[in-house]
């Protein structure tokens, strides 16, 4: 492996165990600048846990996660965000009691300290950023609506917008098109293509069509370990991957237990 500085994200020997159960086991992978990486794998493979580990929600038992050369494993969640890592959750996670405008405003990267928030002023820069982002995520007409009243798909977009306004260098998306209608799905794929242009992205997704559309490289996880890595074409033809996805009954049951 070459110098970790060349990668935007270098994950090495990452392990986390809960009461002896290793949800992620000695995982290493590297993400290049501007790369779109998709993580796939059967349920329980540890995909979401990997994102949890990178963004600091879960603490690693062992191993390191370096983002532009900075060690993330001991940083607090908000510091990781400040460093430039944004995370979208599997279920849409927006502030339902606040309006769409306020949701985006809170995500705007200024006034994040206690006193900064007290003295925060809604100036032109904020207004511009909010309106621009709202337009990008198709929510310009809903700015004054409480986020709780949005449809499921719109909430997903709002959350993507909340990430976008932070302008992170590394964007992590956990099943961004899950639970969307076909039309919304198409619109989202379009949206993701625009917003992923300037940054590195890690996506967890089951929708193979979607993966084929956007992925530069694919990492396949199984039972907390990396099974295969490479282009989608490459991993599709990997016999171990085929086995995990389609293979024998035993291995499928094993996957269900993990």
């Amino acid at each position, binding site marked *: 492996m070459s110098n970790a500085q060349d990668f935007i994200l270098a994950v090495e020997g990452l392990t986390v165990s809960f009461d002896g159960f290793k949800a992620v086991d000695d995982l290493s992978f590297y993400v290049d600048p501007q790369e779109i990486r998709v993580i796939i794998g059967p349920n329980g493979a540890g995909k979401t846990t990997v994102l949890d580990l990178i*963004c600091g*929600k879960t603490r690693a038992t062992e191993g390191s996660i370096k983002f532009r050369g900075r060690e993330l494993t001991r940083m*607090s*969640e*908000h510091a990781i*965000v*400040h460093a430039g890592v*944004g*995370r979208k*959750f599997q279920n849409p*996670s*927006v*502030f*339902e*009691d*606040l309006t769409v405008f*306020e*949701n985006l*405003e*809170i*995500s705007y*990267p200024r*006034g*994040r*300290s*206690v006193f900064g*928030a*007290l*003295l*925060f002023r*809604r100036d032109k820069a904020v207004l511009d950023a909010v309106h621009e982002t709202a337009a990008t995520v198709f929510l310009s007409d809903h700015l004054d609506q409480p986020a709780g009243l949005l449809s499921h798909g719109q909430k997903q977009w709002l959350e993507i917008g*909340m990430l976008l306004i*932070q302008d992170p260098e590394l964007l992590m998306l956990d099943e961004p098109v899950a639970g969307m209608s076909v039309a919304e799905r198409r619109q989202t794929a379009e949206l993701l293509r625009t917003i992923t242009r300037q940054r590195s992205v890690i996506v967890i997704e089951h929708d193979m069509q979607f993966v084929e559309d956007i992925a530069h490289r694919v990492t396949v996880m199984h039972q907390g370990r990396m099974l295969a890595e490479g282009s989608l074409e490459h991993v599709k033809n990997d016999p171990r991957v085929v086995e995990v996805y389609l293979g024998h009954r035993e291995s499928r049951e094993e996957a269900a237990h993990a």
Partner: protein
Amino acid sequence: MTALRNLFSGREVLYFLLLAVLLVVVLPLALDAFRLNLTGKYLTFAFVALGLVLCWGYGGVLSLGQGVFFGLGGYCMAMFLKLEASDMASTARQTTPGIPDFMDWNQVTELPWFWEPFHSLTFTLLAVLVVPAVFAFVIGFAMFKRRVGGVYFAIITQAIATILTILIIGQQGYTGGANGMTDLRTLLGWDIRTDDAKQILYFLCVFLLLLCLVLAHLILRSKFGRILVAMRDREDRVRFSGYDVSGFKIFVFCLAGVFSAIGGAMFTLQVGFMSPSFVGIVPSIEMVIFCAVGGRLSLLGAVYGALIVNLAKTSFSESFPELWLYAMGALFIAVVLAFPNGLAGLYSRYLEPLLDRGWANVRSRAVAVPPAQEKTS
């Protein structure tokens, strides 16, 4: 001007002015000196309720130990007044003249070191604000940095209230024990026991309360307030939007503590004593009910809640002492089960639409222009 209009909507100003008129004009005219002083005492609890609106209603952090801060503020003030009342002339007959009487009764022969600075009023006033803030900071830092919240936090604060009460009662020689610090007379030579003084102190109390209300309102109106709401909703998302959630909780807990302490200090001044019976778990949880009855999301509601519950308590426990605990218990249950947003919630749900309709009728008849749709909060 537009900035100001953003911070206060017309209706909020109206409600605030109504309360101010009630407290500054109506009550002083309507009540005799004794009742007015009693109202002033109730209002000191409104400070605590106000803090709880911020901390519990908006921050989602329920402290069952606000009596601790009320007591810290009250005791700081009482220590100053007690020292002033214990000058050489009035304590000449004690074994050790010049120290508070309860120390003398408990064979304490020298003023303890932590009493010394309370000879200074400036220090005392600072202490009223700083001591509870530091105390709240230490508790908040330890708990919120480790993500302790909810029921755990509530009970830990209750344990702290218990500890402080036992400590105050146990260390009679330094604190006056279960009786508290009594027989407080003058503030810089000004007799606080006269009717005139009590009236002035009432107005001071109202002034400070209105000040705290405005401050709390400004905080809730800032992005800070929206972050509190967001945190209550989805704490994780706030964290992953780049905020250090614990800092916001610590701040709001400290602020609630300082508000309570101001209330405590005003209590001591107006009532003339301070005792552990305002510190422990029972008074602390009662203070929560003031806030809950008024409406945990309404700053003005907190003031009305404190006034109404205390008024009910005084009149009820005078005439039917056995029934009061039943009523209080029922109030706890009712406020949780039946009207979780308290009086403020009932008002905005039932009364305000009626008033709006009446108002709209009057206006349309007067100018024949449809009333502007106003957003209610």
